[in-house]
């Protein structure tokens, strides 16, 4: 437990109480502490006094929310009542209603003793290092969410911002100038018996120019105005005037 645990918020900023809460690992621990403080013999607990002190302590410590402590407080109050009206077991002995509580306290005391022993063992062991061995870090459970609405919304915004926005491609119609290309090719045909593809394209052609010229070439070839010749696959294309048609 640390001081930033859920109790800090529950107590509305009274950190002193949180430290106190962490000092006890449970109601039995708190009870043992009270008994030690008062130097009370565990076999003869003045229940009325201890019950009152326990209630006072959990009130003081701000433990009111802790169900485990309230459970013990309830048991103590019941014991307090039972002490006033003990049951007779037989002629000589009376039932001691504290019996069960004492048994639990002794049991718990034993556990504390063992814990002390174990802590010493852990400490001893922790000072013996293994060669370059880093134990895998424990998988910690996710911390409890302590977000307010604003933080939550800003977190949502950060998440959304990280999502790549959809890309819109604008499709621009590029008008092909087949007429212009045809005119240029016819002018070339008039002057040249044959010429190369690059020459047909002219200087610094755009992609539209290339397409326009290519379509114009095919169209003129279809009309029988020129021949398209390649000496080999992928060889440069040569454009040749169709001899049966005189140049315009």
């Amino acid at each position: 437990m640390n001081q930033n645990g859920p109790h800090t918020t529950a107590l509305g900023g009274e950190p002193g109480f949180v430290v106190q809460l962490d000092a006890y690992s449970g109601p039995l621990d708190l009870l043992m502490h009270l008994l030690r403080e008062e130097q009370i013999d565990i076999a003869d607990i003045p229940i009325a006094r201890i019950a009152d002190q326990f209630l006072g302590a959990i009130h003081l410590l701000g433990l009111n929310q802790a169900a485990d402590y309230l459970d013990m407080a309830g048991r103590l109050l019941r014991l307090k009542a039972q002490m006033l009206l003990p049951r007779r077991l037989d002629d000589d002995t009376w039932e001691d209603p504290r019996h069960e509580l004492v048994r639990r306290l002794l049991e718990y005391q034993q556990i504390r003793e063992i814990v002390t022993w174990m802590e010493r063992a852990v400490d001893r062991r922790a000072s013996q290092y293994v060669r370059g061995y880093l134990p895998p870090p424990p998988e910690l459970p996710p911390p409890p969410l302590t977000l307010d609405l604003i933080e939550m919304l800003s977190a949502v915004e950060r998440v959304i911002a990280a999502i790549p926005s959809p890309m819109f491609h604008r499709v621009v119609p590029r008008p092909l100038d087949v007429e212009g290309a045809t005119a240029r090719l016819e002018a070339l045909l008039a002057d040249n018996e044959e010429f190369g593809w690059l020459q047909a394209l002219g200087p610094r052609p755009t992609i539209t120019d290339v397409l326009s010229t290519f379509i114009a070439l095919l169209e003129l070839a279809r009309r029988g105005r020129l021949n398209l010749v390649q000496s080999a696959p992928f060889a440069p294309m040569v454009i040749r005037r169709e001899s049966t048609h005189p140049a315009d």
Partner: protein
Amino acid sequence: MNPLTQLIEAALFSAARPLTVEELQTLEQDASLSDVRQALDQLRERYDFNQHGVEVVELAGGFQIVTRPHFAAALERAQFTVRTPKLTGAAMETLAVIAYRQPVGRAEIEEIRGVNAAGVLRTLQERDLIEVVGRGEELGRPLLYGTTNLFLELLGLKELGELPRAEELTIALHPHVPEEPAEGEAAAYVESES
């Protein structure tokens, strides 16, 4: 040092966990278990006699080469190593109950400690210090927990029997005295005191 001792030294040096005598025996098919034990003894004596900075320790059923405790502070200061964070008091209490009462269910742990144990049990399970070893016969067939080898490693113990003995305690250590109900013992103790 004989070749087997050298081989075992190499194995312990290279391994990231304690190796058992049986595992070490697989290194050399001609070696018997007692050969391996002898070699381990020889290695341990060698480290002690020559005052090496490391020693061979037996824990969690196996053997491991570790640095000697009195160098820990220097190693930590130089940040060659980092001390693992301590477990909380609640976690240690829960481990103690499980170690002595295993196999033990959540209800019994909560009865002894007087607090809800669900969160602590989950954390201990995630850290591999306890595991589910079965289910109880009671209503709802509750999960029963036991400690793991990693628990022994955490405490540097060879076996559970190295924990303080049952006779020294008012609660019973299950693996050794299963027939004696712990509550009877505690009650007897109360009567003799009062």
